[in-house]
Every structure is written in C-alpha cells, then in structure tokens.
C-alpha cells in the first residue's frame, strides 16, 4: 500500500511546484527583451518619482512659484524643456509630475480591481438571481465607453484629481468583474472547492481563500495591461480641464495649458506629452510580457 503523504509533506510539495512554476515564468519573462525594457524603464520612473524633489532644478516651480521675467523661454541649458507662460521650469514640473501619474494609476487600478473582483466573484459564486442582478448592473456600465462615462461622473463630482480617480475607478471595474466571473465560474467546479465545502468552510472563506487566489494570474495581467490606459484616461480628463487644477504639475493639464500657445511655443505641450508616452509605453511593454508569461495561450 502506498504511504499517504502527511499534510506537512503535502504543503512542502505544493510549495515546490509553485516555486518551479514561478522560476519558469521568470525565465520566460526575462528572455523577453521588450518586457525587460518596460520593467527597467518603470523602475527608473519610480526612482525618479521619489527622487524628484532632489533632481528637479526648480522643485518649487511645481508648487506654483512663478518667475515673470522668465516667461515662455525656449529649451536651453538652463531650462531643458523651456518655461511656460508664468515662467515655470517645465523640466522640473514634468519630473515632479511623475509621482502623481503613478499614484493616479495605482489608485484607479486598485479601486477598480477591488470592486470588480468582489462583484464578479460574488456573482459567479452565488449564481442565480444575485448573478443576474450583478451582471446586469455591470452591463449597464459597459454600454457606455469608459471615457465618456468618466467625464460625466467626474463633472458631477466636481473638478479635481481625487474626483478624476474616483470617476475613472467607477467606470473601470466592469472589466474586472466580467473577467473574475468567468474565472470563478470554472474554478468553482474544481475538486478542491468541493473538498473545502465538505470540511465545512464558510462561503466567504471558500471564495476568498480557495477560489480567488487561483484566479490571480489573469487578474494581475489585466491590472498591468490596464495601468497604461488608466494613466492615459486620467491624463485625458486633466487635458479636458476636469482634473488637477493649477498649479499641480499634472501632465494632461500641462498639455492643456500649452495648447493655446501651440505651435509657436511648442515645448509647453510637447514635453509633458512625451512623459505620458514614456510611462504608458513602459506599462504596455511590461503588460505584454506578463501576458505571455501568465497566459501561455496568448503567445505561441
């Protein structure tokens, strides 16, 4: 008769398998040059965000200090990206805006995924009329493109960067809800769920401890691929004028600021736009690589 494994040995075995899977994934990720570029660039951006006050030549310009005598100067050694209409150094403001852009993306993605995963998970696990109700609500949010609904909600809440984050999160969760629902629907038929149910685990425990952790990879992929678009959407609202109010160095608002003087003073709008691009492109490269690693079917 085969010796059955003790629970301690089982746990050890499970950890070994997980570790092996992680190492393989890491190998695939590292052998993907593009996602490594994305990751490195993001690490640099994070460092930049923290070091901004020490790197920026005129950090006080991001807090609203103006220099009337240095208005609208083109890029030079003194002002790498030139100055805006009240004489603020654009290079300093772009650097000081990095942290804000990252923060906005993180808040939106976390709020949206928490709402979406909870709603999608409960819908799939409970089934029946709860599923129907929650999914119809999700559908309502999906009938209107995210940007349009985000504009409407943010306008109602009032201008400001916090309301932009709330507004975008409120329209971003349905994607996560749909994804989580489909994942949980297939996972809840698995034997380990039956086992957990058999030994009397509560529904909440089964859903949050046993099912959702197994659904994590696709959700993480979605978080990373969505991050760039969340940053873009926030910048769009800033550009429209619903976002951060002056003198906050928000990139979208800075482009809006430079629009009236475009193209004669092209630098005011151009450099914040490039900054948005660098951040979004890095996330998209990273997300693309993560998708290959965690969802092997997507790339062959």
């Amino acid at each position, binding site marked *: 008769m085969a010796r059955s494994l003790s629970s301690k040995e089982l746990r050890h075995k499970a950890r070994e398998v997980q570790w092996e899977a992680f190492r393989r994934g890491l190998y695939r990720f590292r052998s993907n040059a593009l996602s490594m570029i994305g990751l490195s660039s993001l690490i640099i951006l994070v460092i930049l965000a923290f070091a901004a006050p020490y790197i920026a030549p005129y950090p006080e310009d991001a807090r609203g200090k103006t220099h009337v005598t240095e208005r609208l100067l083109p890029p030079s050694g003194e002002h790498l990206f030139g100055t805006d209409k009240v004489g603020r150094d654009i290079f300093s403001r772009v650097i000081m805006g990095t942290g804000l852009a990252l923060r906005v993306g993180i808040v939106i993605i976390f709020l949206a995924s928490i709402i979406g995963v909870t709603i999608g998970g409960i819908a799939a696990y409970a089934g029946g009329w709860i599923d129907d109700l929650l999914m*119809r609500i999700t559908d309502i949010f999906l*009938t209107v493109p995210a940007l349009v609904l985000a504009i409407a909600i943010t306008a109602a809440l009032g201008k400001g960067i916090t309301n932009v984050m709330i507004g975008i999160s409120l329209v971003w969760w349905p994607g996560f809800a749909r994804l989580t629902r489909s994942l949980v629907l297939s996972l809840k038929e698995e034997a380990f769920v039956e086992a957990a149910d058999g030994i009397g685990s509560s529904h909440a425990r089964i859903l949050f401890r046993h099912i959702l952790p197994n659904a994590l990879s696709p959700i993480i992929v979605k978080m990373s691929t969505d991050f760039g678009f969340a940053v873009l959407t926030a910048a*769009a609202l800033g550009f429209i004028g619903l976002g951060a109010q002056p003198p906050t160095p928000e990139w979208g608002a800075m*482009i809006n600021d430079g629009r009236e003087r475009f193209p004669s003073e092209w630098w005011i709008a151009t450099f914040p*736009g490039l900054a948005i*691009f660098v951040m979004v*492109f890095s996330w998209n490269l990273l997300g693309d690589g993560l998708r290959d690693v965690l969802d092997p079917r997507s790339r062959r």
Partner: protein
Amino acid sequence: MKLGSYFLRRLLLLIPLLFGLSLLTFTVSRILPGDPVGLAAGPQATEEIKESLRKEFGLDKPLPVQYLSYIGNLFRGEWGQSLYSRREVASDLKVYFPATLELTLAAILFAGIFGTLLGVVSALNRNKLPDHLARVVVLFFVSFPAFWLAMMFQLVFGLALDWFPIGKRLNILMTPPQTITGLYLLDSILTWNWKAFRMAAWHLFIPALVLSFGALASITRITRANMLEALDKDFVRMERALGMPDRVVIFKYVLRNAFIATLTIIALEFGWLMAGAVLVETIFDWPGLGLYIVESSLRLDFQPIMGITIIYGIVFSLVNIFTDMAYGLLDPRIRYG
C-alpha cells in the same frame, strides 16, 4: 426570418439596459455638488432668478417625479434643454452626432485594415523580425495620448508641410452637401457633389488616422493569435496538399476563420474610438459629440451630458448587436437560437 426574430429579441433586451443607463445618468446628474443653476444664471443672479430657473427646469420637484418626467420626455423625443445655451439637446445631438459617427467610422476602417494586415503579417512571420516589429509599432502608437498625437499631426501635416487642413469638417467658406444622413462623405456621394466629397475626405483623413491608432494594438493581436490557430487546422494542411496557392489558402480560408474574432474586437474598439473621438475632436475643432460633451461638462450643463451618454449607450449596443448578426454571414456554422 430567423435572423429577423433574433434581431428583434436583442432589441427588446436593449430596453431594460437603456432604462438602467438612464437611471445611472440621472443619479449622476443629481448627486452633483456643483451648482449648475448658479452657473447658468451668472454671478449676479438673485435668489429669485435662481428659484425661477429651478422651477423652469423642474429641479424643485421630488427626485422620483423628476426621473419619471425625464424618462417620459426621452420617449417623446424631448431630451431637455441646455441650461447654458437654452437650445434643445435633441436638435443639438442631431447636428453633432453624424460628425462623430463619420470620424469614428473612418477611423475604425483604417484601424481594421491596418490592424488585420499587421496581424496577418505577424502570424505568417511568427517570432521573426516582422512579427517583433509589428508588435513594437502597435504598442508604440497606442501609448500616445490621442490629444497630444493629434496636436503633433496637426503641426507636422497641417502647419509645417501644409498637406492637410488643421481642422473642421470643411473649409469655412464652403457650403456642406445637402443633409441626408449628416455624414458629409455619404451625402456628397448621394448628391453627386464631388467637390464636397474631396474636401470632406481631405479634412477627415488626419483626424481619422490619429484616432485609429488607439485600436491598432488589439486588432493586430487578436488577428495574429487567431490566424496562428487557424493555420494549425487540418483543412489548411489539406488545402496545401491539394496544391492550392498560398495566397488563396491564407486570404480565402484562414483569414476568414480568424476574422470572426477580429470582428468582435473591431466592434468593441468602435465604442472606444467613439469615446476617443472626444479628444481628437477637441484638437481638430471637429463639431461632434466630443466637443459638445467637453464644453457641457466644464459648464456642469447636465441635460446635454445625459443625452450624449445615452446616445453613446444606444450606438454602442446597436454595434454589438450588428456584430453578432454579422457572425452568421461569415460563419455559416453559427445559428441564432
């Protein structure tokens, strides 16, 4: 017949969805902490003027009553009045909607053609240089803020090279073609007005191109993945064994199989692009829903915002229904149940 009843059922399912949407937009418009009446009345308005404005727009009644009368009016085609311009929202929408539709249609056409081509090229050169290049290029373009890219294109092609106009749908001096659909290109074809057609196409090209970039990445990715899957099928080996030319195998059989998934993405992206049009319109001074919603949202003018949101909801849902119906034409295996 079968298709007709399927279409009808889908349309009926749309009704509760749009009810939900109207409830959502109504809720949003009534939780606003801002003071739209105060904004519309101006800073010098007295309390009495504001009060009469509130009465005029029905803002003094209880919320459920306001909602019911809002819904009733929607069905009668009365979509409310702008607090700011005092114009009817419905008639404004009639003017602005075709402009956005034309821009979005042109953009999705560009994105569909380029995205599918790039996807086919990637799949045929899997993991070779063209595949990697296509991947980087589409990720590159999708990462730019659309409004910023629009400004750059305006600068390069409109001002520096002077190849294209920098905005609007036509020259200011030109009279638009007789309005039939509101889509200038279509109207000018219908009225044999080739001068207007050329002008409208010339104005449309750059905005539509900029807008199309946003949809390139996902169309390319899906086409590539499904081409690879279809290329693996037995029928492909069979056709090749029979000596069918590669061109026929790929474009007639493989692509047709892969295109069903591409079509789904194109429909989804249509909604995204129509939303992205908000930003592109702002730059190119394109008189569509985008300019309208931006101006209204900055003025807290809620009737137009609600109207625009509902229009977007209707169009997006209809596009999805039409896509599902198009599957059957492309893939005879699909039956509507």
